[in-house]
């Protein structure tokens, strides 16, 4: 019981700090503005496609979320432990009965809460907007729910990665640089490099046998593919063309997300156990 109380204490304090720093508000406002804008854009296209408005919004939101959610999650988490090491408060906290895993988990829960609240608010606002204007359908709502839940998972993966960076870097400046690097690699450079490789490889075995697995290995790409592959009639481009020829059932795309979450958590816990405050 007492470990849970201590985790709750850490979560409460971390959430309070996120609120004071305006991170929580910034993340929520940013997500909501984008979600509403995409919903309005989809409402404007009514009659031009056979796809319903909510499905269309979900498709464009999946593409946006893959950039925005990892960024927000990393921004909220990269300083959580490095900052405490810098300020000397980590030594103080670890001198109390608080366990190291408890500290890590408490912070992770708080960061997932902040990202989760932003996602929840944004998604609820846009679905209400669509419902009030063009109405919603069953398949549309299902796509929406899928997107919402996997968005939470994506946020959790990158919050855990951010904390891993934070404890590994030990300094705020280093952690910030690493967080930006991780975001660039996972969200931008990885796809660019893969596309380049596909173009260079042409019709060889790489494109059909190796490329799809490499795409799925990236948690951000796995998230996007999982959502797009199930949206019939949604426009796809670039690397997402793979969505139509995925070698595995769509649900399998969730496996890399789960694996990354477990790996980030295990890595972070191993690092914080070895940390000398």
């Amino acid at each position: 019981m007492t470990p849970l109380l201590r985790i709750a204490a850490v979560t409460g304090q971390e959430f309070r700090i996120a609120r004071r720093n305006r991170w929580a508000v910034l993340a929520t406002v940013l997500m909501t503005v984008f979600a509403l804008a995409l919903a309005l854009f989809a409402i404007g296209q009514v009659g031009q496609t056979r796809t319903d408005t909510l499905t269309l919004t979900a498709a464009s939101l999946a593409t946006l979320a893959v950039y925005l959610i990892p960024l927000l999650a990393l921004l909220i988490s990269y300083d959580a432990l490095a900052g405490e090491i810098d300020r000397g408060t980590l030594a103080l906290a670890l001198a109390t009965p608080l366990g190291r895993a408890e500290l890590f988990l408490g912070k992770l829960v708080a960061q997932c809460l902040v990202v989760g609240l932003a996602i929840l608010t944004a998604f609820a606002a846009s679905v209400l907007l669509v419902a009030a204007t063009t109405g919603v359908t069953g398949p549309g709502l299902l796509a929406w729910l899928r997107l919402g839940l996997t968005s939470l998972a994506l946020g959790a993966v990158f919050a855990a990665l951010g904390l891993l960076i934070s404890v590994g870097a030990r300094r705020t400046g280093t952690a910030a640089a690493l967080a930006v690097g991780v975001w660039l690699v996972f969200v931008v450079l990885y796809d660019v490099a893969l596309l380049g490789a596909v173009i260079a490889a042409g019709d060889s075995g790489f494109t059909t046998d190796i490329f799809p697995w490499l795409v799925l290995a990236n948690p951000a790409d796995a998230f996007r593919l999982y959502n797009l592959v199930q949206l019939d009639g949604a426009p796809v481009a670039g690397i997402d063309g793979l969505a139509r020829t995925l070698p595995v059932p769509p649900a399998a795309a969730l496996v890399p997300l789960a694996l990354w979450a477990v790996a980030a958590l295990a890595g972070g816990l191993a690092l914080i156990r070895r940390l000398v405050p």
Partner: protein
Amino acid sequence: MTMLDVRDLTVRFGGFTALDGLSLSVAPGETLALLGHNGAGKSTFFRSVLGFLKPAAGQLSIGGHLPGSAAARGLVSYLPENVVFHRALTGLEVLSFFARLRGEPVSVVMPLLEKVGVAHAARRPVGTWSKGMRQRLGLAQALIGAPGLLLLDEPTSGLDPVSRRDFYALIAEVAGRGAAVVLSSHGLEEVENRTDRVAILSAGRLVAQGPLAALAEAAALRAQIRVTARAGQADALQTRFGGTRFNGTALELSCDMKLKFDLVRRIAADEGVADIEVRLPSLNDVYRFYSDNGGRS
């Protein structure tokens, strides 16, 4: 019984030996001051007791438990040097957090803030507090619950003399309730009459340990006497009293404390003397005797 028992503690960072065969113990209700220059090993000692650093050799026990174990962390309270609480949090929030971590009810927080004299600012962000107020908050944090062993790393740096006096009064109160206290400091003058024992660290080695008066006596430092001669009398004075010449017209003598008064009387009676200045060894001299020379004169 002892609350903190340290035997032959050696801590190394790579090839550098930060603590070298240190042994000491502190009983409940006792206050020990750990003195030493920057880099003498004071903070390393605290971090070893907390279980953050793994010793290369030696044993540590906190109330019979291993450092860093759950039982030991339940007993220990720590105030690090230069702790900076999050600017955006209020004093009340900071202290409530640490009370929760220690499993104490949040109701203990306000009385503690009152006790250290910062209750009036409890609901303001710590970022707006003065340095002295933040140091008091750190001390309040260390007083949560009923700690068995208080580890305070340079707790009075940045405090004005009045705050310092209040601070030592609080420490005395906590020790009076049975806590063992180890605090580090830069000088002997500050801890005079305020701690039961002092331990002096020099380059990772414990060079002296005991009550301050005993250390001063064991150092057997000599009194310094400066004699200024009348014009043309300096040479004659040196022949009579010995000592070394200083500035042509003055003599510097040193003598055993017990013989000092006799010598002063003889000098004062001499016609060739214009002035006498007597300097007795200060606590600072005692500290430097141990710290700089390792107790060898």
